[in-house]
């Protein structure tokens, strides 16, 4: 089972803080699976055409996917995925 956590405005599209998923082997596959579950608003936020949007930050076990292989980053049972909008503060 893969654990997926949602944060900030992403929760507006999922109406829940977290969920679980199984069967996906990559981040892109997982996000596509979640788009089917949460609908077009979520998809618009997470994807920009065929690409994962620059408006989201996706972490796999705390590592940004930019540093783990991008959309092809493998995911497996026991992983924790976190999805954030681009945010800032200080």
């Amino acid at each position: 089972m893969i654990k997926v956590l949602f944060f900030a405005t992403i929760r507006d599209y999922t109406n829940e803080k977290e969920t679980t998923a199984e069967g996906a082997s990559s981040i892109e596959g997982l996000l596509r699976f979640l788009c089917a579950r949460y609908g077009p608003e979520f998809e618009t936020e997470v994807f920009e055409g065929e690409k994962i949007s620059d408006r989201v930050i996706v972490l796999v076990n705390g590592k940004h996917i930019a540093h783990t292989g991008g959309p092809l980053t493998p995911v497996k049972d026991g992983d924790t995925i976190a999805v954030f909008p681009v945010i800032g503060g200080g």
Partner: protein
Amino acid sequence: MDKFGSIVRINLTTGSVKKESLCEKTMKEFIGGRGYATKVLYDELPKGTDPLSPENKLIFANGPLTGKGAPASGRYMVVTKSPLNNYIASSNSGGFWGAELARAGWFMIILEGKAQKPSYIWINDDKVEIRDASAFWGLDSHEATDKLLAAVGDDKAKVACIGPAGERLSKLAAVMNDKNRAAGRSGVGAVMGSKNLKAIVVKGSSRPHVENQDEMKSVLATAMEKLKTNPVTSQGLPTYGTAVLVNIINQIGGYPYKNWQGAHMPEADSQSGETLARDFLTKRYSCFGCPIGCGRVTKVGDREGEGPEYESIFSFGVCCGVEHLEPIIEANYLCNEYGLDTISAGVTIAAAMELYEKGYIKKEELEGGPELKFGNAEAVTYWTKKMGLVEGFGKKLAMGSYALCEMYGHPEFSMTAKKLEMPAYDGRAVQGIGLNYATSNRGGCHVRGYTTSPEVLGLPQKLDPAEYQSKPTWVKIFQDLTAAIDSSGMCLFTSFALGADDYAAFLKAATGFEYDAAEALKAGERIWNIERLFNLREGMDTAEDTLPSRLLNEPIPEGPAKGMVSHLPEMLPEYYKLRGWDAKGIPTTGKLEELGLQ
């Protein structure tokens, strides 16, 4: 008055008030605010001056953009010699006070000496008076503000003041303005208290001068478009405030837990910006001219106030092992009222908790107060109050984490850099921010060079927080740019959407000086170096460019960044080299000549 505003030099010992012209050459080279004031302090303050003596100088300084229509341009700086570490103190604050000072025609206030009795300064346009503040001494910042406004008979005036913490010389004391905005760090409030100065009340009626209005309008339009379309400045910060960072910093495993004994808190969402917005937020607060509005107005029970920011949630929350927001909000309110720096206050309590749990602070010393155990919410609010009032065991806490831990023989528990308490990002999980803490001229500070932005948030580009080889370059650039932004009078948060080109364009429009991005960065570098020179003159050993041994030698014990330590020793030589300093971290003659600082 001078077109960019004048300098008023006030000697509180003699009562003299002198108007001086600002030097346009210095303004061009050091911009204003943090830069110009540091130049004044460097030129005028004798080496070795006791920070809490009448000989220290306390400078309130606007930037050339403060109050002039650029977005989020209500910032001013308080610059002095810090009583916390004897090095440069330069604390930045927003609200409306700085803009009002600009409207009164003043660019900078230089305070010298010590008043014989509690005093405040009343600035009404070009009239500057030193007045008796005996009736206001002892009041918290909120009560004092209300009564001072009544005393001057103008409720549109703006007040910067100290609370009991500053009066009683707590080295964690802040200068508070507009009740809840803080020039918080480095003990600047204690320096104000040492001068018997309760407040500076300002009212202005003129429109601050902008050299080229048409150019300003054009630059403003471009910048506003960027701010309105940037997701951070148009959505994240307005909706959730800075506390939106709680979850992401926790998720990467860099959220300092129980005085940096850990870096991940499973329950962090209960203290997140999302929870704050859902359960406690009543409205947003915007400083002067700010289109972002990251400030939080909150309510807990029958108490309403402002905050907390991300940093305060960290310091009183995760750092003290406290999970829920109610006591964190209450501690934050207390800091606003007593005039305490929230980061230093919470991190000092966390250090005291470690000392207590390990048996170095004894229960009897607490005089019946709540036990200093991690997770004890009652202890956080109780000891914040005692720290603010500087009474009982709170006297020891009011000295700050380093002095406290040293007193008990365990300075290694003090999570400080150059004796200033570190903020809310673990330098083991986020390598660049650790280098920034270690090299920050005022000590452990995130907003001297906020590399968390590229390292965690992916702005302006995505850097791996665990990688360290590229970080010296980023840290230097961020430190230099930040010094320029701080000196301009604009808020650092605009930099999520704006770049060096934008700030240079604003400075050029406001002053008429030929700034471009390179020139602005060069001014930032000049400011960074003069701060360094100030510290070196005060006896700073460059071996102090370091982090607590915990970050260098104790791997993060759990969470997503498990096993990581800071690679500071590998980064520091490259950082010195990039700065044009020698291998020991001393600016070279060549670098100083290049910057005009020889």
